[in-house]
């Protein structure tokens, strides 16, 4: 059973990869979002910090942070509101529900295929920018080792929450509006406007508890050794907690949503 699911997922992934590869230029234009936005804040903080430092970040640290941000925000991106919500709204979800595989396996395949196709453009951009900006980097090996698990959790939370917002389409025609709200909160509290350590008091406390930071900012802080010891352990625990919570929300919304979907007869 398990291996059949995986085999199904693998073939979905191949199909989505082949499909998206046709639209690689369009995909690349979407991918540029995860380049342009970090550059804006990279520029702003480089200007603001001058030759001093803010909350332990000097100019090089900001540059490094936003370079890693580009990669992490691409790899943890949720696109389900653009892929699944329209199929729910138009009823194109129906044929996928007849397959012997949960429709969100397809969403997952699309998600991974999108990221993979874009890597061929983005990796050269990342490397190019790193070579131009050349920030000093003092590796923290524990952080680098923990980066991968933290990234996987971040991508999972992001995918699950993105799917939850997409499933709002079972009830409302404007799931996109809710997603907009979520994204602008993620901008502020997730580490894009500023690294969480740079946020002032209340915002920082909120960011540590709320899920946004754990979908993008936290893995970066881990990789760069910005969180250490007890703080690191607590952060990973909170991240694991949000992963479980997001999974639970996903399951609950799916069960309720599918009932609703049938009832509408879409």
């Amino acid at each position, binding site marked *: 059973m398990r291996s059949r699911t995986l085999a199904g997922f693998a073939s979905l992934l191949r199909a989505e990869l082949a499909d998206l590869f046709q*639209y690689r*230029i*369009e995909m690349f*234009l*979407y991918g*540029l*979002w995860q380049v*342009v*936005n970090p550059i*804006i804040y990279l*520029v*702003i*903080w480089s*200007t*603001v*910090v001058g030759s001093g430092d*803010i909350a332990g970040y000097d100019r090089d640290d900001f540059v490094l942070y936003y370079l890693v941000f580009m990669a992490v925000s691409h790899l943890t991106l949720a696109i389900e509101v653009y892929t699944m919500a329209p199929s729910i709204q138009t009823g194109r979800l129906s044929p996928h529900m007849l397959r012997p595989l949960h429709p969100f396996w397809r969403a997952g395949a699309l998600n991974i295929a999108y990221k993979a196709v874009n890597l061929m453009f983005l990796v050269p951009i990342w490397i190019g920018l790193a070579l131009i900006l050349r920030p000093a980097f003092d590796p923290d090996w524990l952080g680098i080792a923990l980066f991968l698990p933290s990234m996987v959790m971040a991508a999972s939370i992001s995918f699950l929450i993105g799917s939850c917002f997409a499933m709002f389409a079972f009830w*409302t*025609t*404007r799931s996109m*509006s*809710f997603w*907009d*709200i979520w994204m*602008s*909160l993620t*901008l*502020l509290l997730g580490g894009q*406007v*500023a690294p969480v350590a*740079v*946020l*002032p008091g209340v*915002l920082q406390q909120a960011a540590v508890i709320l899920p946004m930071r754990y979908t993008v900012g936290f893995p970066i802080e881990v990789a760069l050794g910005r969180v250490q010891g007890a703080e690191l352990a607590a952060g990973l625990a909170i991240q694991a907690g949000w992963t479980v919570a997001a999974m639970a929300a996903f399951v609950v919304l799916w069960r309720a949503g599918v009932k609703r979907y049938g009832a509408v007869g879409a």
Partner: protein
Amino acid sequence: MIGRLAQIAGAYFRSALQEEFAYRGDLFGNVIRSVLNLGTAIGGVVVIFSHTETLGGWTLGQTLSLLGIFVFVNGFVAMFMSPSLNRVVEEVREGTFDYVLMKPVPALFLASARRFAVWHVSDIVLGAIVLGVALAGLDVRASGWGVLLFVALLACGVTIVYAIWLALTTLVFWFVRVANVTMIFNLFFQTGRYPIEVYPFWLRQLLTFVFPVAFVTTVPAQAVTGRDPSWLVWVAPVIAVVALLAATRFWRFGLSRYTSASS
């Protein structure tokens, strides 16, 4: 002719309004969306200014005025421009653009003033409020001339946005699978949240002459916040007219390449 077109656009607008009021619950959700989006945007500016006095020479109040203009223009574009032009992309893809061409009014008119996303009115209002409040805090004396200049510059900015959007949309006649124009436009428009003086030289040039976001937010904000207006103030009308002419010519050229969808 102009009167009749205005009448038609008015009828389209009324039907968009009626459609909107059929979904009043969504309207409420949209107001919340606008308020929260604005809140986080202001939050971002405040976070930056909690570590500095000025940003590219702009004070907190001046930067917030600029943010107000950004939100206002963003809402205006989302309400009046993108719905119609995005529809063109869909129609060309599906082949239903034929019906637009058959109507006894100019295609460019129908392509530009057929659909309205009324609910973005909340962004327009909120943007104006932020601008007003920020200006009140700045204590700038508004002379009649200053206000007139500001409105004229804002009109130039919006015209430039329309020209860019129309040009991007026209690409659909060659690349049927033109990407989501909103997405591409917003990508570069994001840079207009902050004064262009923040950006390094090459990026500033790019945002002034290639993708002229500078004229949409920074230049009007300079005029209204009493900052020394740069020479760009005098270039803005020229760029607006040139961009509009170029975009409409490009549209007509693109239209002549339209081959419908049956090929």
